[in-house]
């Protein structure tokens, strides 16, 4: 199962991700995103891809699990 990740170093807190997909991403006190669902459930895979594409900073990514 894929995981959604956020690179805090380049995130600027636009909030489009948690505005659009609260089932995957929430926000903290500073307005920065927090991934709430790990790994991404199969029925939300399309939503996750859309969220990655909408980030103005390209701070979100879908990553494959590392091989055990």
């Amino acid at each position: 199962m894929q995981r959604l990740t956020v690179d805090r170093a380049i995130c600027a807190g636009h909030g489009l991700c948690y505005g659009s997909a609260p089932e995957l991403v929430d926000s903290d006190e500073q307005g920065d995103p927090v991934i709430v669902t790990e790994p991404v459930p199969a029925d939300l895979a399309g939503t996750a891809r859309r969220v990655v594409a909408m980030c103005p900073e390209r701070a979100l990514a879908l990553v494959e699990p590392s091989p055990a």
Partner: protein
Amino acid sequence: MTTTPSDLAPDLVSDFDIYDPTVTMPVDRMQERTAELAERGPLVWSTAHGGHWLVTSYAQVHAILRDPHTFSSHPNNLVDAGQGKFLPIELDPPEHTSYRQALQPLFNPSRMKALEPRIREIAVELITSFQADGRVEFVGRFAHELPTRVFLALMGWPLRDAVLFTEATEVALNGRPGDDPEQAVASRTAAAQEMFGYFLRVIAERRAASTTGRAGGDDITDAILAAQVADTDGEQRPLTDDELARMFFLLLIAGLHTTQGSLAWMMLHLSQNTAERDKIVADPGAVPAAVEEILRYEAAVAMGRRATVDAVIGDVTVRAGDQLLLLLCAANRDGDEFDQPQALDVGRSPNRHLTFGSGPHRCIGSHLARLMLRIAAEEIHGRIPDYRLDPDDPPVVLPSQVRGFARLGLRFTPVGAA
């Protein structure tokens, strides 16, 4: 050595001046003018205001906004209102960081979301006040009023003070109508001083109230008064009166004028793209994406940056000390980032517009702005969905680094008062 026009090919030099009233009056040609600049190249030199680079490409604007070490945020403004630095937008990291962290929680998404019922109440009250008339001057009756009332409620300042802000903010941005450039500087300075006087009175009253133990406590004014920032030596300290006043001034200019503009542009462009409007009338669920498209289609802000070192951007060398002006309205219509950028498409996805900026200074009020725009769109399209421009009252758009509306006359089918 900073850049001079003689260093450049003639086609890279322009006299474009973002403060020139003829750019937006009698008809707003900002998009047309900046698209012409974009055709010449991603960076074009303007001879106005002592000379500066005009940046129009999405990729370059985005890169510059995210590189505060090479491109300082001071000065942001090509013209000066004698106000000193706007805080915190004219600070660079690391100094900027603690101001940002102090302010950001006050405008975070969950706090803003809690305002939704109050914002909706104000929006409905405003629409109800004119919906039976069949016509409205939308700026005065709605686009200005909604963000102003929300801002005053957030700050905990009296509504009666709005008149003072409205005029002084306008003059601080644009000077007075008919001013020559020298008079405009004097007008701006006087307006800025008037605002500072007001803020210092508010601050003094709040400080007095807190020492006598009758502080209200939960509005943003008190929260900012209680905020701590890190000094250069890392010590935490409260903000000084002067810093507070400059921060309030920024919140006011950044919060009111911009939202007012986006609300007016929503009406202007949807009235001229009725097939797109029909989609949100038919389905309120389409509103959030439509709000993003309205935001992309017309960005009010053109922020300044100054190169701290020589830097190569594409084919152009920017020299240390050169001023830059980032034209967000042009970046948002860059065909390398957006398909069919000149088309208003309320379902556009992805829509990575730069209207709220990018990088460390990204708009702190974006969550509030989105909320106001969404609620306004829902309530307006549920009540007066067939609005059109009033041929007898054409739109009046003002230029400057925060472009905005002075008037927008609309007509619509009258609706019985609720």
